[in-house]
């Protein structure tokens, strides 16, 4: 029998390991898994559906159509002077990414209980994979948005009322900000759901309320001054508005609200990661 050379690798297993420290090295070692999970999420979502990944476009288009009809034509809610379709599509770009990422992240423990009970890997890989795989759907939506954008810009009279410039290149940075909010809040809910299963039933309600408190179907400028504080507390509100500003050239971006959102996003992420790491240590004992 030969004996393998002594490895420098060492793992210490002891109670109450710090949940403040994020083991980035371990996550890096599992980067291949991250890639494969992204692929799995994407493939599995559209497997055996007739339209396949086209669903990523059908959903926002249908929503846009309904919004245009109900909020635009029936209720007459202003879209800030933009063509309604462009307005809603731009809102949904941000909102759908957030809602998907938030909900899936919130289900990290419940959806992966079996896996987590059988094998170790850095658990944060799962929300990271969710964050990335939703970007793929976002790309499809962005493509559809660009088509409509070109159509309205160059073939309709409304084209003079909006436009964009090099600032649109800041959109990816803005997406990082959005993802921070989505993942941070998702992690907090995930940790709470692991302990209190009741929250699973509240989740759709949270998403719905959040949608109405975010300027998705109305522009931020339509919010009365005395209610603007609600928008300041909702970290997503200035982000949806800023995205619109970047894509359509006009929007009510208030630096104060934006900074407030950045602070809240950072807070959500830090608290989320802390709670998540605290929960993952013994989550499996409570399943």
């Amino acid at each position: 029998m030969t004996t393998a050379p002594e490895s420098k690798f060492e793992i210490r297993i002891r109670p109450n390991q710090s949940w403040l420290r994020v083991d980035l090295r371990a996550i890096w070692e599992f980067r291949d898994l991250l890639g494969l999970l992204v692929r799995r999420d994407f493939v599995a979502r559209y497997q055996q559906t007739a339209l396949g990944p086209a669903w990523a476009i059908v959903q926002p288009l249908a929503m846009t159509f309904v919004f245009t009809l109900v909020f635009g034509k029936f209720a007459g809610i202003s879209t800030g002077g933009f063509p309604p379709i462009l307005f809603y599509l731009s809102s949904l770009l941000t909102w759908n990414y957030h809602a998907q990422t938030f909900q899936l992240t919130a289900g990290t423990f419940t959806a992966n209980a079996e896996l987590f009970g059988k094998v170790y890997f850095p658990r944060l890989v799962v929300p990271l994979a969710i964050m990335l795989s939703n970007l793929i759907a976002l790309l499809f939506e962005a493509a559809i948005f660009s088509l409509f954008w070109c159509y309205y810009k160059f073939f309709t009279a409304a084209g003079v009322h909006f436009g964009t410039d090099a600032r649109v290149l800041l959109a990816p940075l803005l997406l990082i900000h959005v993802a921070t909010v989505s993942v941070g809040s998702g992690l907090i809910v995930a940790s709470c759901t692991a302990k209190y299963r009741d929250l699973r039933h509240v989740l759709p309600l949270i998403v719905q309320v959040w949608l109405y408190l975010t300027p998705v179907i109305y522009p931020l400028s339509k919010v009365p001054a005395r209610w603007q504080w609600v928008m300041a507390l909702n970290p997503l509100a200035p982000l949806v508005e800023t995205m619109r500003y970047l894509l359509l050239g006009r929007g009510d971006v208030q630096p104060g609200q934006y900074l407030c959102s950045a602070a809240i996003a950072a807070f959500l992420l830090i608290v989320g990661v802390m709670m998540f790491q605290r929960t993952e240590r013994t989550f499996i004992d409570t399943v």
Partner: protein
Amino acid sequence: MRPIIELQGIAKKYSLGRIGSTSIRDSVERTWNRLRGFNRNGAVPRGDFWALRDVSFTIQPGEIVGVIGRNGAGKSTLLKILSRITEPTKGEAVLRGRPASLLEVGTGFHPDLSGRENIFLNGAILGMRTHEIRQKFDEIVAFSEVEQFIDTPVKRYSSGMYVRLAFAVAAHLEPEILLVDEVLAVGDAAFQKKCLGKMGDVAREGRTVLFVSHNMASILALCQRVILLNGGALLGEGSTQEVVREYLKSTISHEVVVLDERADREGDGSARLISCQIESIESGHFISSSSRMRFTLAYKGDRPLRHVRFLVTIYDYTNTGIYLFDSDAVGGIPETLPAEGVVTCTTDPINLTPGRCYINLALLRGAAIADHIEQAASFDVEADEFYSTGRVPPRDWVMCLLKHKWSFDEPAS
């Protein structure tokens, strides 16, 4: 050399009752009760359950160590802690090597993905890098014997194919420490044999294996050393043969099988079998392939019995007869027996493969059946060094073992 696995006072506590507080209402109620200063209403009976208590041991690099114990002895908890799936309540464990754990095969298999995609996904979940998997891909596929279906979604696989593919991925891991839980209990006999062989190879390559199993034959075949857990504590540790024997002694009940109460019997009832005891002459309750056996039967009749005949038949689980011990065929029972007494039947080595056996008992007086009980008792035959190689065929291949020799005849030149 420093031990590759080192456990010091590892303990794990679970809260009994409804584990964790699963609903907000419970939590609120408990807090409310605590605030009001009493703990009666709504308080679920909570106690602590120690799944592991102060377990310490060390394992040297290259050892294959088995962990045995009854259900609930803490084997799985131990493996979960070492696999970092849950953390201990007390103590510390050090792993000085890259670990991989197989608590189940096929972990993370996605039914919609093809066999090929699942190999990569499962491998990555188990800690392999993509380029490592790519290197071993052909080997994995060949081992799994599912080449034809490698691009079919695994949900269309038969359960046998699924398990084979899953094990193939696991078997090609190259960790320094392999933690295995009962995965060998899957698949058909031929595949199990292949898996055992693979585990042996892993060990010969100098890697360390910690193997939890209920299957004493595979423990005996694979492990050099065994750790015995009981009620969460370390009960014994030592050479495989010794510890396994100790464990089996403790698991098999020492009671005599009482037959008096059995209603499912035939015969005229003029004499009845009262009890029976089955044991190995050498080692009491540990019955193994080379054991010589002793059957002790107590009987009772209304008056002294003349011309009695005792029959003990051994069957396997398919109700196929293996042996018949007939007192008339070999003699030894006097022509007249007292109304009440005990007779004993002893045998040569039973030469049976490991597995469960059932016995039927009958008591005849002349030509009349006085008492007949089917499945009066059962006993388990354990594997032992029958062929002094530690390898015996499994029960589903053959029932009996026979000492034999092989030789190679030099061709006459």
